[in-house]
């Protein structure tokens, strides 16, 4: 519908964020900058920008600064911001969107959480090849890559204990119809975009 009520909000970054956030209208334009999200965030102290701040930056078209921010990577998906947001903005989902955009643009490397995507990538490596996640492999690979010393500590203490208590496998489990899953994921990636 053609309407002259449209605002003159020009930055396309803003539209990209909305477009790439699935699950209905994320209501991003409704932000009143009240700070409920930043106040509620359990890891807010570690974020360089609170979610509220990020939204203002998105609105201002500061794409690079936003995608360089460590905030999305400190999001623990607790959804407190989302249930408390008085404007019902899909904050957690927007954080996921920003993570994906940061990876795509390669800007996450410049944030203080540069290793976070690596963990996610390792995780999905197992999912895409076995259909299940694999905690031992995940933890080991991730730590070997970023914290070799930690990896040894992990393996020597917690890892061993988990193994001893039968809470960790040595080899990953594979689902039966792996070809089907691979086809589905391949198609999903081919369709591309995020929604």
């Amino acid at each position, binding site marked *: 519908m053609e309407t002259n009520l449209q605002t003159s909000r020009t930055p396309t970054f803003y539209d990209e964020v909305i477009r790439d956030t699935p699950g209905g209208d994320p209501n991003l334009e409704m932000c009143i900058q009240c700070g409920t999200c930043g106040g509620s965030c359990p890891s807010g102290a570690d974020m360089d920008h609170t979610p509220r701040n990020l939204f203002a930056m998105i609105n201002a078209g500061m794409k690079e600064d936003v995608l360089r921010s460590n905030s999305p990577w400190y999001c623990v998906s*607790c959804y407190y911001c989302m249930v408390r947001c008085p404007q019902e903005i899909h904050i957690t989902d927007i954080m996921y969107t920003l993570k994906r955009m940061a990876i795509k643009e390669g800007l996450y490397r410049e944030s203080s959480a540069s290793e976070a995507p690596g963990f996610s990538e390792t995780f999905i490596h197992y999912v895409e090849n076995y259909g299940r996640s694999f905690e031992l492999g995940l933890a080991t690979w991730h730590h070997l890559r970023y914290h070799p010393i930690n990896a040894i500590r992990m393996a020597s203490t917690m890892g061993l204990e988990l193994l001893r208590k039968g809470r960790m496998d040595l080899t990953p489990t594979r689902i039966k119809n792996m070809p089907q899953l691979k086809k589905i994921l391949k198609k999903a990636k081919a369709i591309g975009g995020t929604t």
Partner: protein
Amino acid sequence: MKYGYYPGCSLERNAIAYQQSTMAIAKPLGIEFIEVEDWNCCGATEYFAIDALAAYALVGRNLALASQQKLNGDRNQLVAPCSACFLNLYKTDHYMAEDNKLNANVNEALAAGGLHYDPGTVKVRHLLDIIVNDIGYEAIAERVTKPLFNLRVAPYYGCMIVRPASIESFDNPEYPTSLDKLTHSLGAEVVDFPLKAHCCGGHMTQISENTALELIRRLLKNAADYDADMIVTLCPMCQLNLDAYQENVNKHFGTNFHIPVLYFTQLMGLAFGLSANNLGLGKEFINAKPALDKISSEPLKKQRRKKRPPKETLPMPTMPEES
């Protein structure tokens, strides 16, 4: 009662105790779980950060399988004991219904594997939801043979079971009470745990351990401040973080917490008089035995004399609670 069942990766291994105890209590409660054939990982919080459509398609495959297999006939209810799995399944179903484009794209991907899913055909529910709402507190109390008298329990919900609120939740997203009531019906003393729905740190243990340790410390401190003998939970991630990382917290902050963390199903099993072996007890890092030893066969006499408050005390609020 028959339900479809989606255990999720954690219950296969790390949360094997949750799996064992869930299966153990299912029988006396008359619940039959039928596992989704050849289910795959839900993607946890990781896949959504890399590729949203692939993530939704990954979850979509599980929903499509559950819907195809008609696990419990027309009701097609799918129970997930892991909060992250529950949320991902529920959210995918919900968002597919809300967002036509997402629905079309997910189904296009599923079609590549010969599958299809119509949002709304599978009703995703958390294990706790069916236990308190379908079975009910009274029915549970009736099956209690060894009440957990004298055990002070802090019920811990974590995040994902009651949120986000845009998704219809079976309990209050801010201050849930279903696990409190359930624990109470087992005879235990329930701590009004202020941080009951706060975050356990999630995957931060892997990405930024210090951040995670602080979040875990807050929970442990609050439980200790409230003199809890143990924390009871319903999510493998919460259990792992609070339990396996407790020593790390102590080392990092110089604290000395020893609070065992069990699954609510384990406590239910104990109260039902089931053997500890069948409930996966002993798999926890912080040994629960000392706390469990506190359980007495009789309720301790209430020491709290009904102390009359001094006359100048102002009355507490009388506004009715939200129903």
